[in-house]
């Protein structure tokens, strides 16, 4: 049945401005005690003492809660645990993450950590979902206004400063699908060059010797180092670095073993 939406009272009842004025007056009296607004820079919802004072609870016009922990604000980056896997940069729909070198890596393979341009960031949280180590996470920090546009670019060090403030970090970690694809090796193509193992951010690729087949008469064995990568599947974060560095394109995504 359709709900009745007919007005209860007719439009031309005498002097109907009384009702709205009474409503406004009621609101006036209510807000004389305490208006629903908060004086923002001085009172903050996330401040426990303020919440205690105004007894914020659900249904109260001041709000149903603090800044919740899964708020998607400025990122916090723990440089120490970052493995430079590039997954955050890959998953960014706005291309606002750039991997920049930070001091601390070995000179041959410098350590790279995300630098985020908040002028472009859409705060979707895909990077923090993608981070396999949980070192890049969004925090409850929401104030980043600045008079200078270049200050919107947060270097890894600046993101690490956010991390050091111990703000609440996004508690939600997404589970990986069980049938997740894994890195597979097209063995006949492999030349055993060690590039994948060298660049693997989690060091889950080890090169193992493969037996060199004996050459049959008339057949020429390919020139290669007789080693093949073996991937420790439980450690692999599926960043695809090995695929991108492989010179022979012999690594590819395959189904779960």
């Amino acid at each position, binding site marked *: 049945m359709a709900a009745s939406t007919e007005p209860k009272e007719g439009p031309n009842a005498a002097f109907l*401005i009384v009702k709205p*004025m009474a409503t*406004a*007056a009621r*609101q006036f009296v209510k*807000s004389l005690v305490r208006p*629903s607004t908060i004086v923002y820079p001085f009172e903050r919802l996330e401040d426990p003492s303020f919440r205690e004072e105004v007894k914020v609870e659900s249904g109260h016009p001041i709000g149903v809660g603090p800044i919740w922990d899964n708020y998607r604000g400025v990122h916090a980056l723990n440089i120490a645990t970052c493995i430079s896997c590039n997954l955050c940069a890959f998953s960014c729909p706005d291309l606002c993450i750039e991997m920049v070198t930070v001091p601390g890596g070995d000179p041959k393979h410098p350590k790279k950590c995300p630098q985020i341009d908040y002028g472009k960031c859409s705060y979707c949280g895909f990077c923090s979902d993608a981070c396999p180590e949980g070192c890049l996470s969004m925090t409850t920090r929401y104030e980043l206004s600045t008079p200078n546009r270049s200050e919107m670019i947060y270097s890894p060090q600046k993101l690490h400063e956010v991390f050091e403030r111990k703000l609440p970090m996004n508690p939600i970690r997404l589970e990986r699908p069980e049938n997740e694809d894994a890195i597979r090796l097209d063995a006949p193509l492999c030349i055993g060059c060690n590039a994948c193992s060298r660049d693997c951010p989690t060091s889950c690729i080890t090169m193992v010797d493969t037996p060199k087949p004996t050459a049959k008469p008339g057949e020429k064995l390919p020139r290669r180092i007789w080693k093949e990568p073996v991937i420790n599947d439980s450690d692999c974060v599926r960043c695809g670095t090995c695929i991108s560095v492989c010179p022979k394109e012999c690594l590819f995504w395959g189904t779960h073993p």
Partner: protein
Amino acid sequence: MTVQSLYGVAALVAGGIAYLLPFLPPWLVTIIADVVFGAILLAASMINTIVLIWYERKLLGRFMDRRGAMHVGYAGLLQNFADGLKLFRKNTYKPREADSLGFYGGPTAYMVSSLVIFGILPISTGWDNGSLPLSLLLALVIFSFAPLFIFLSAWSSNNKYSLMGGMRSAAQMIAYEVPILIAVVAVVVLSGSFDLTTIVSEQRNYWFALPLFLALIVFVAGMLAEMERIPFDLPEAEAELVEGWNTEYGGMLFAFFMLADYLRALIGSILIVLLFLGGWTLPSYVPAALTSFPLAGIFWFMVKTYLVFGVFVWVRASLPRVRTDQLLRVGWMRMVPLALVSVLIAAAVVAAHCLPVLGCVPGLGS
């Protein structure tokens, strides 16, 4: 004109000048005293207007479940000065095709014509500058200059929105002048005088709001239209006309309009207090302690004025804006008859010399 013809504050000033500078001729003393008194009036009205804006912001804030201005000065009292300063620093742009004289002269004349009325309105006994037997009429006449200036500035800003706003403004003000004047006639009939001081002193026993309740309603509605406040703010209906007739104005010229609007709001509230709510007097049965402290007259006058303005704010917080044709229809077809009825009531009261509820009242009529 001699010194003796002045009294009240102006006389005080003149006396002071004559005491301090005894060598000055009396006519010069009078002129200086008038100028000084004018400056005091200007300052008083300006400060009152700005406080009025603050008052509206705070009140409207509470009606809207928020706080209003609160950071500059105590409880935001200085916020308007800060806003004014900002507007003062701003560049004023004139549209290329706009007419200079009207564009700049309109707001100035609007402002000046609003300020002039303050020289006429008695605030308390011993305040006003001389007795004007027709002060009420003069005040209303100056008050009704405004549509002309608004239309002038609207027309000369060469903007379609401004033009429409100016047209609406003129139409609405003319439509509401008539019921206002008729309602005032009711008051005049009851008090027997056009002098505001006399009108107030005639209300020493009871306020004219009681017998002339209809006239009060008409007058309040008419004043809302004259001040262009919600629900009658169609000339500057920001939803369709951007800012109505002051669309093209920025910076200090906009501040002029803004200030003049609130000046007129203040004048409207003062007129309502003077005509219907007993001015600076309280009814005679009120304990004497309430009326005998120094400056009691001004105090009660201000309290009443601000309460009346609070009602305007209340209306603004709870009613939407009406449409032009509805406004005009209400003005001509409801307000005018109501005002006429109230004139009849006033005449009946005067004729009977008695009020059925309050009993016989001495000192009515001629």
